[in-house]
Structures are given as structure tokens and as C-alpha cells.
């Protein structure tokens, strides 16, 4: 898995490339935790770009959920961009459709944080 981190309109965008599976997911967890820890209270604005995520398992989903709950606690917001077929199914099966804000357009997603 490759993760590229960039700032757009005050939002931290993580472009994730590869599989969020097994031990590979740890890299994502570490980067998300680092971003949350270093942000001021109430200021976490994070967009996970899943466009190039080929597969995700329940531990990968667990990392996204843990990020969501940490951000809830600290104040701020996390959203998902370009959630594709099999990852969408995973979210649907897990009954988490209403939990995550999902976007298919990056501009719109960034706007939603303003």
C-alpha cells in the first residue's frame, strides 16, 4: 500500500493506493493516528481517497471506523472519496452506510468541510 498525504483547502487528503488488508493496513493506521494526534482539538479535517484501493478486509474497515470515532471524540470530521464496488459492499454489509460521508467528486468533498 502507498499513501500520499496532501493539503487542499485546509483538508488533509490521503490518497491510498493498494490493498487495506492484513498487516498492510498498519501503515494507514499509523498515518491517520499521526494526523489526528498532531491536529488541534476540533480541527481534524480528513478526506480518505479510496479511488485506488483494490480491496479491504474487516481489519482495514476497523481502521477507518477507529479513525471516525477518534475524530468524533477530538472534534472535526472525516469523509470518504471514491468508494468503489467491493468496498462499498463491505460498508453496506456492515450496516455503516449512514455513518460515513461519501463523495464521488473531490471538489464537492473539499467544499463540504468549509
Amino acid at each position, binding site marked *: 500500500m502507498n499513501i500520499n498525504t496532501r493539503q487542499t483547502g485546509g483538508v488533509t487528503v490521503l490518497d491510498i493506493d493498494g490493498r487495506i488488508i492484513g498487516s498492510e493496513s498498519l501503515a494507514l493506521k499509523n498515518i491517520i493516528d499521526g494526523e489526528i494526534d498532531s491536529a488541534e482539538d476540533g480541527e481534524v479535517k480528513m478526506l480518505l481517497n479510496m479511488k485506488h484501493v483494490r480491496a479491504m*478486509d474487516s481489519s482495514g474497515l476497523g481502521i477507518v*471506523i477507529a479513525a471516525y*470515532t477518534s475524530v468524533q471524540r477530538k472534534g472535526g470530521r472525516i469523509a470518504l472519496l471514491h468508494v468503489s464496488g467491493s468496498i462499498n459492499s463491505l460498508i453496506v454489509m456492515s450496516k*455503516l452506510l449512514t455513518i460515513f460521508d461519501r463523495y464521488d467528486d473531490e471538489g464537492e468533498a473539499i467544499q463540504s468541510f468549509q
Partner: protein
Amino acid sequence: MGVAVFGSQANLDSRISVRNLQVKKTTEHVIHLDLPSSTHFIYVIDSIISEIVNDMGFDKEASEQINLAVIEAAVNAFKHGNNEDSSKRTRFEFILGREELTVIVEDQGVGFNRESVADPLDPSNLLKSSGRGIFLMETCMDSVTYEGSGRIVKMVKSKPSAI
């Protein structure tokens, strides 16, 4: 679609019995794999199961479901069964039948009781960061059964043409 080709119910029936005959004649192909118990080796499982479902002609959706279920079973065997102790082995058996794929995953742990695992769809568990693996296996496969006190999980998925 097959019905149109064969035209009458009588012909359809004869097609079915021919197919059943073929099932009896064809040897199932069995592939064994055994690995050190480390989630590092999930890539081996991922690649072999992807190739097998492709070879068997499962469609994209079924392939993704099987892939997910097998990875969940492997991670459970590595983590919960064998405590990520890479000197312990995890065994995989892939049975490529004409009508269905069976995957058996066996670890060297003490097992567990499926009944005592909490329901991840219960509202109080919905935001937990773990506990969805078995539920996903059961959702993605046609059948999931545990043997050997929980050390062995057996999962079956039928080909759409066989349903």
C-alpha cells in the same frame, strides 16, 4: 437462457442428468497450501485464491466475496488461532469442484465457540473496530461451518450456473 436452447422440459431434464453424471465422473481437484502464521503472508492467500476463482469462472462479485471470506479466515487463523507465531502453521485446502469451491482453513490453536461471538450488527457493536470477520465470511459464502472445536473452518461457495 439454457432453456431456450434446449426447447422442451424433457430436454432440459436430460441435460441436468448428463451434468450430474459428469459430476460423478470428474475428480475434484484439491490444492493444499501451508504457511507460517503471519499476516505478512496474506499476499500469498490473496494471489492464490484470486487465481482459483478466476480459473473456476466465478463472476466479479462472487470473486470479491470469496476473496474477502478467505482473507478473513486466514487472518483469524494467523491472529486468533496461532497468535501470529510464525513457527505455527496454518493449513489451507482448496477443493475445486465442478459446481462449487470449498475452502478449509486449519490452525494449531485451541479453537473457540462460534456461539459466543457477539453480533457485529447489534447497534452497540456497530462502531467497534473489530468483530466483523466471521459475520463477513458468513455473508459472503453459501455456508461456513466450524469443526475441531473452532480450529477448522470450512466454507463453500457454489458457482452461479450451479444454483
